């Protein structure tokens, strides 16, 4: 898009905004750190929305024959809960860390395409809004986050599906843009000496996640286009009356959907791989094997999708193939768990809040992995598919996994981002409440699944014998809710009066801890040169790794270097720009047009065109 860049001396359509303040600073920012904060804050708001939806569902299911919400509302709740948590919470929270942390970890001043980065965020926000516009007219998506055809055809559904289709399509554009950006950033903006096999593991998982995004999202894009053509123009992709096959949707959806699972979990694994070594004061055990494991999980994730479809009548040959490929994924996953445990083993283990969350991740993810092996076996899966056993499984992976790790990441990097610690006492309370609440909520769902309770039912009769565990589960859900309130209290307290954190509060190992907290606008006054894995640790304790001890004056105080850099005033960071948000606004208008008033569609597309032209004409200044 930005390839037809004008020569530097020419002015664009609009002058680039110069270092504005206040709200305009956020609107026009192209600084990855600020964009990271925008991602994080927005995702957290969506987390509260998605969490509220979950609590409403749990309230309805607490006792048999409850009548808190009706069936239509319940279906909308689980659809929006799933969609929100996946696309508007876990992915953008991961993106928040990609934005804030990855450039710092690789010793870069920004990402490869700063304006594209801002565009990704605004498109993500637009997609989230489009998805929620249905609430305005009481037409909320209600066909599940998987939206199985042919329930989504006009004959069987209402307008809610349109909001899902358009919203997800737009969210996909944002994800793709971010995926490309981080792929190129990690390839091209590494500090000198930071070879691939020296990259911090979080950077690695970001890299692999970006590859997955780039290859998986086109597939859902096409599936959504086909569904949209069916709904808007009378195409027949999934219209069974004219030969459409609902199974094709399932295949396309899961070709995307399974890599998507790893898009959700790999960044979390990266975060854990950062936290555990720091708080065990040991390098990550088996680093190269961890990298190979991540890469092979990513590769295999494109070959296993039909394990979501074992009950569709795949036939024994296909079922055997997908069962075998699925089981294969357990091997690299196991390698990761064993390596984390070995990192702890023999270490000097501090049980601060970030570490508690990371260790909690390992313990809970192991459970999710083991239940995953159970329904990797198709015959067993025919008893577990679409029951609460599966709900338990993927919440152990995505909540016990992703969410715990992301909270760990917040506790870990909060001092870097704000310069203040989150409260340790409230943090511990947060962790234990969440851990207990989580296990109370999702542990009993294993029993409910074994007891034959299907997913996505808004009610059940008392005679089914599911009352007790549902009640326990609901109580647990409220405990999770409480733990989130504790977290909010902790953050707001820390932002006002948190204990000051220095540049390196945890005795960190990677480059982000080598600069001040919060980092300066330009990240690094001088681009560091990397001599090995755990670059900052190596710089602090060269003797531990058998390197000659550095002369004292070479142990640089980077904060001082920053002041020097600022004083020199020669550090170039990209100027803010209006075009990313303008282009994204065009997409928002176009999407709104498809949903409410077609005449708005060309208007929106015109705004996009103006945005792209303005963008490409904009002077690219350093």
């Amino acid at each position, binding site marked *: 898009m930005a390839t037809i860049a004008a020569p530097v001396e020419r002015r664009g359509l609009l002058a680039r905004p110069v270092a504005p303040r206040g709200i305009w600073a956020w609107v026009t920012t192209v600084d990855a750190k600020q964009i990271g904060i925008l991602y994080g804050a927005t995702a957290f708001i969506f987390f509260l929305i998605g969490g509220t939806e979950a609590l409403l569902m749990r309230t309805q299911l607490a006792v048999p024959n409850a009548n808190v919400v009706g069936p239509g509302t319940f279906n909308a709740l689980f659809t929006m809960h799933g969609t929100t948590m996946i696309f508007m919470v876990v992915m953008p929270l991961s993106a928040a860390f990609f934005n804030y942390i990855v450039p710092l970890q690789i010793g870069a001043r920004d990402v490869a395409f700063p304006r594209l980065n801002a565009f990704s965020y605004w498109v993500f926000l637009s997609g989230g809004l489009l998805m929620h516009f249905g609430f305005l007219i009481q037409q909320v998506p209600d066909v599940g986050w998987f939206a199985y055809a042919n329930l989504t055809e006009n004959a069987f559904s209402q307008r809610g599906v349109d909001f899902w289709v358009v919203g997800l399509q737009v969210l996909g554009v944002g994800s793709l843009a971010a995926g490309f950006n981080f792929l190129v950033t990690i390839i091209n903006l590494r500090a*000198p000496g930071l070879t691939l096999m020296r990259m911090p593991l979080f950077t690695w998982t970001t890299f692999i996640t970006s590859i997955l995004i780039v290859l998986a999202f086109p597939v859902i894009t096409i599936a959504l286009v086909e569904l949209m053509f069916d709904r808007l123009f009378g195409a027949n992709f999934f219209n069974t009356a004219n030969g459409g096959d609902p199974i094709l949707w399932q*295949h396309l959806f899961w070709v995307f959907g399974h890599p998507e699972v790893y898009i959700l979990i790999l960044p979390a694994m990266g975060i854990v791989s950062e936290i555990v070594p720091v708080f065990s004061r040991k390098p990550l055990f088996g680093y190269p094997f961890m990298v190979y494991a991540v890469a092979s999980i990513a590769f295999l994730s*494109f070959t296993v999708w039909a394990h979501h479809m074992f009950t569709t009548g795949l036939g024994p*040959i296909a079922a055997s193939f997908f069962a075998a490929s699925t089981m294969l994924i357990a091997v690299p996953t196991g390698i990761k768990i064993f390596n984390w445990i070995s990192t702890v083993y023999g270490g000097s283990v501090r049980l601060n809040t970030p570490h508690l969350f990371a260790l909690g991740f390992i313990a809970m993810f192991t459970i999710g992995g083991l239940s995953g092996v159970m329904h990797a076996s198709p015959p067993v899966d025919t008893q577990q598919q679409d029951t609460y056993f599966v709900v338990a499984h993927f919440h152990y992976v995505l909540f016990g996994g992703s969410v715990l790790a992301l909270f760990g990441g917040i506790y870990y990097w909060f001092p870097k981002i704000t310069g203040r610690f989150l409260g340790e006492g409230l943090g511990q309370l947060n962790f234990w409440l969440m851990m207990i609440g989580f296990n109370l909520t999702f542990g009993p769902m294993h029993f409910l699944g074994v007891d034959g309770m299907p997913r996505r039912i808004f009610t059940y009769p008392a005679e089914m014998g599911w009352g007790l565990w549902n009640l326990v589960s609901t109580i647990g859900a409220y405990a999770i809710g409480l733990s989130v309130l504790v977290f909010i209290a902790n953050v707001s307290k820390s932002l006002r009066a948190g204990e000051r954190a220095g540049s390196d509060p945890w005795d960190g190992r990677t480059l982000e801890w080598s600069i001040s907290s919060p980092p300066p606008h330009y990240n690094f006054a001088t681009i560091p040169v990397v*001599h090995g894995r755990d670059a900052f640790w190596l710089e602090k304790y060269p003797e531990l790794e058998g390197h000659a001890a550095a002369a004292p004056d070479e142990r640089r105080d980077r904060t001082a270097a920053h002041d020097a850099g600022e004083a020199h005033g020669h550090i170039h960071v990209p100027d803010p720009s209006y075009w990313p948000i303008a282009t994204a606004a065009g997409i928002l208008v176009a999407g709104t047009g498809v949903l409410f008033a077609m005449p708005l569609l060309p208007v929106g597309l015109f705004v996009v065109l103006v945005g792209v032209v303005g963008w490409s004409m904009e002077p690219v200044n350093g």
Partner: protein
Amino acid sequence: MSARVPVVEHAEHHPGATEYIRIALVLTVITAAEVAVYYVPSLRPVIMPMLMVLSATKFALVVMFYMHLKFDNRLFSGFFIFGLVCAAFMITAFITLFHLLSAPKAF
């Protein structure tokens, strides 16, 4: 130790105009062959593999020479081939699942 490397645009060998035109001639011949094959009834039994080989050859020629992948950085080949392999796997799987292993249709 690898430091940052200045971006060098044209360090590699690029084929010249003559070579480009020669490749275009080959592409033309193959296209003609494809269309010709289509009209020869006696080739019907083997038309599928024949056409696939012919178009794969065209595909490879354009990618290797016009897109310079043969001479360019292996990273680019990596990206492209990984995408291509994933797509090919998906398409092969679809054909297998829908046409070779498919359950009987209910029409």
